């Protein structure tokens, strides 16, 4: 039996890729994690947390680098501490920092990492090249990595993480240092990896907009605990009701608009030029439409009220 054959990639939706139950960890008197529980399902999952909140610790545990003091952690149906090598063989990891061996060629580097994760040499050579083409570095793959730009390094980091075809790939700040166009290209690539090749992605990021843009699930860690976890939709759509309208008007007209709404019995809040009308009943949409029509106001933007991930995040931090 080849090593690693014991790791089953869960294909049924009932088994999460990663499942944490009441995981705790202390370093001496410092409590890094006090009680962390979450499930990571197939797809793209964003792991968020304030700096120093224990995010790094739990990610380290998933790849079997630290032993938990209590609770249960299962990755690909195994305990990563006791089956570290087997688990890591099916994981890909792209670190946050941009330093890569400067004298090594990208193709050799990716090949080496693929071999480390169990690919035979000939396969590793082919797949190194395929992965580098996939991330858009096909023509640059024989360059020493010391001569590469930040954008290229981020791509090499992604290529080395996926070259061995992991079940899960963990990406730490994969868009750090990228400009907006490069960032979108990287996010597209990550989505491609997840959707076309079925590799689940665990993404650690500080940019909530980006997590909101591509993630299916979210885990928020704070002060050593899970503050929130679940599908993105369930987090941002919980509880929020009503409608948000931004009108094409100056502050005075916005205030008048709000006053009109209130006169008709609506409960409203104003944030800059955005007016939020509370109400679980969809009649608030008609109310907004009618008042705008009556007042001759232009509608810049209008949508069902929805929490932003930032609202969820900041609220969960308390």
């Amino acid at each position: 039996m080849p090593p690693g054959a014991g790791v089953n990639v869960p294909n049924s939706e009932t088994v999460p890729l990663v499942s944490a139950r009441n995981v705790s960890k202390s370093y001496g008197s410092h409590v890094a994690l006090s009680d962390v529980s979450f499930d990571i399902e197939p797809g793209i999952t964003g792991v968020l947390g304030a700096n120093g909140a224990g995010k790094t610790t739990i990610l380290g545990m998933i790849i079997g680098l630290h032993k938990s003091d209590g609770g249960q952690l299962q990755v690909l149906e195994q305990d990563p501490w006791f089956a570290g090598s087997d688990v890591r063989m099916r994981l890909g990891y792209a670190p946050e920092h941009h330093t890569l061996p400067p004298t090594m060629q990208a193709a050799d580097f990716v090949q080496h990492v693929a071999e480390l994760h169990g690919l035979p040499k000939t396969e590793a050579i082919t797949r190194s090249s395929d992965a580098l083409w996939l991330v858009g570095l096909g023509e640059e793959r024989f360059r020493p990595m010391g001569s590469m730009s930040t954008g290229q390094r981020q791509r090499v980091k992604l290529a080395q993480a996926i070259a061995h075809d992991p079940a899960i790939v963990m990406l730490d700040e994969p868009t750090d240092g990228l400009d907006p166009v490069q960032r979108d290209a990287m996010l597209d690539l990550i989505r491609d990896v997840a959707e076309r090749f079925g590799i689940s992605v665990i993404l650690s990021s500080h940019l909530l907009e980006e997590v909101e843009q591509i993630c299916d699930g979210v885990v928020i860690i704070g002060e050593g605990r899970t503050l929130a976890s679940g599908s993105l939709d369930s987090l941002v759509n919980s509880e929020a009701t009503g409608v948000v309208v931004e009108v094409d008007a100056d502050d005075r007209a916005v205030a008048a608009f709000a006053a009109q709404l209130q006169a008709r019995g609506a409960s409203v809040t104003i944030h800059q030029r955005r007016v939020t009308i509370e109400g679980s009943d969809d009649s608030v949409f008609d109310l907004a439409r009618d008042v705008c029509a009556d007042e001759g106001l232009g509608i810049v933007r209008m949508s069902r009220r929805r929490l932003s991930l930032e609202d969820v995040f900041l609220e969960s931090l308390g």
Partner: protein
Amino acid sequence: MTTPNPIVPTSPASPADPANPIAGTAQIFDQGYRRYEGERTGVAGAMSSLVRATWRQALGLKRQTRNKLIPFMIIVFAFVPAVVFVGLAALLPDDFVNELPTYVEYYGFVVAAIYLFAAFVSSAILCEDRRTGMLGVYLSSPLDRRTYLAGKAIAFCTLLFIVTILPILLMLLAYSLQNAGPDGFGNWIETFAKIVLSGVAFGLVFAFPSLAVASTTDRWVVATATNAAMFPASAVVTDLLVGEGNLTPHLRLLNIPGLARELTFRIFNEPQASLWSRFDNPTWTLVLAALGWILVSGGIVWANYRRLLVRR
């Protein structure tokens, strides 16, 4: 090797279709990145890849020429005397061949090249990984700190054996071809074994202390310089302490180059010719001292890596 996966045409037209004579003559292949269903080699495969990558890293292989310069220069230094002796043996009359250095005496000519090589390579393979984030990459692969260090040690020792064994084997081979080698097959095998054994012993005594030094810093220049200074210093200082300071001669066991050379003399059972360090200890204490060096140095390496915070 992978084979291209043909995509079956959505509406395969029969080649006999008279309205479409070129149907069936073309295929579209699904190229590029794909899933991998094959076997995985496990920790053993990872170790073997690590060892090979470390060799390339130390020798600058698959890198630009300037990365190859230092290691290959040192290797050349280690081989030059052997080549010279072999040449002399071929040119000189037979009487003079006996005047050429013996196998064990060869270490005297190349000890500097060997410890320079140890100093340079040990720092190149340990310090660089910490600076370039490669250690983090290794530790998120099936390897862990233990298997990583084991792989590095294996790679390092095998590299050292290039300079501690190969030049002398080259001499043995050349002398033998000129009928100046050991007499008889039994003797030849015995000499061969002694060369390998002494090369291993010589290499190991240098290898571990230099790894220990390299494990304390992530700056390879510092590690190389410390190592390059440490080996001659250990000889000079112990000689002074024993010779001038009249301290116990057992202190010579701390003389790394001296200990290494003395081990080779004992293996070849030749009276030692060295002027600068005289060992009167029984052989078992020398072996014990060598083991001590290896264990203590290995312990230092492990202690340094066990607690090392790895940048990820």
